[in-house]
């Protein structure tokens, strides 16, 4: 993460910041290529830390989230 909170590679550009508007702090993730935003709270972050390796690998399959064509909710958080 650079000084502006950017986590970037040639494949994705995400701005990471700490959001304190809620009653507990949370991480604000903004996909700068689409403008989509997701918040992650402490328990969600802890769960990611402990998630099995296969969990992230599955998330990296584009058809799992943003580019679904099975009629279920997709296209953003």
């Amino acid at each position: 993460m650079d000084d502006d909170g950017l986590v970037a590679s040639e494949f994705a550009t995400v701005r990471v910041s700490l959001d304190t508007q809620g009653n507990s702090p949370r991480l604000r993730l903004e996909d700068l290529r689409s403008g989509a935003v997701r918040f992650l709270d402490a328990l969600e972050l802890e769960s990611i830390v402990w998630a099995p390796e296969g969990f992230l690998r599955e998330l990296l399959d584009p058809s799992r989230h943003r580019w679904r064509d099975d009629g279920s909710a997709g296209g953003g958080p």
Partner: protein
Amino acid sequence: MTTTTDLRSRVEPDRVHGSLYTDPAIYAQELERIWYTTWVYVGHTSEIPQPNDYVRKNIGPQQVVLTRDRTGAIHVLHNRCSHRGNLVCDADRGNSSSFRCPYHGWTFANTGELLGFPFNQGYGGAQAKERLAGLGAAPRVESYRGFVFASLAAEGPTLREHLGAAAERIDQLCRLSPEGEVELTAGWVRHEVTANWKMLVENETDGYHPQFVHSSIFSISGSGIGALYSDKSTAVTRALGGGHSENDLSPEFRKLGVPMGWAGTPEARIPDYAAAMRAAYGKETGDEIMINGSPHVMIFPNLFIAEIQLFVIQPLAVDRTVQHVTAIQFAGAPDLNRRLVTQCVGSVGPAGMLLADDAEMYERNQRGVAQRQPEWLDLSRGLQRERTDERGFTVGTATDETSMRAMWAHYLTLMDPA
């Protein structure tokens, strides 16, 4: 296509035919039988120190990505999407556990495995991943002391067998670090020449040319390098087997008998380094390592370690070659490393006070061999005074063409394996 019989008639013990440098059919065959078969140097582990680091590299004209996966294992992947063949990676380097093709979003792990693609119903669902291909991967990847090599052939000699005695030269290089490790962290200069790749390979351990090609710089800089390659020199040219060869300058460095004399850097200028070496190896061994110096070795077909710099040779066409070069950096030697960058930058690359003149010779040579007569290039220098040393290696004097003859003999075994 050139037949192998043809080829054998073009390589003789003391001469080679000019067409070996100019014939596109021979070049195509070299790619298949040498570059896409034998072990080729790809990169160094210090270029991908962290899990999920990657750098773009090459094996001749093939673009590959050198990756370290999350477990630390190293892979060499072809930069080609398994869907439509698009290049998957653009950046020279990065850190990512997976690569997503910009064309249709197919996504691959840094092991090459296909992780998925958008709108998978078009393929009948996620299970299609099982039948569809991932990124192509070099079937064999091995490293030796951080030097990563790949072979695009599924079978063949092991890396250790391929390196043979040349591995000892890598050891010699690593010993110059108080931590026993080389780091290639100084970035690269890329120098393109209009010449066949073998012109470069042959020149790297040709001790006959320096006094002529580099006299302009030797004469004004007071460099002792010229004398190392004179008829009075006790340095030798040694064929190490496997097409590898060296100019072993250590007899001259030992005559000098001064730690770091080989580098032309008085010990007083790098006191921290000298102290670290003696602390790591003991005074006697530390001094011996610093006196013996760094190797000057050509590891066939593409890795040239020239004392303080490392070159990677990349053929792009029969008459087009890129030389990638970096200053060697030794772990635990910051004061020495800075001097090595300065020294290396002055010598190598497009404006280098040494390499620009080598490049001029490669290019003149390429234009020269296109002329019709006398067809052959002579390789006979020192043939009559060659000897076999105590370990069975063929040795010539500092200016003999022993290394070229050995390179060509090995070339034939690869090009015509029968």
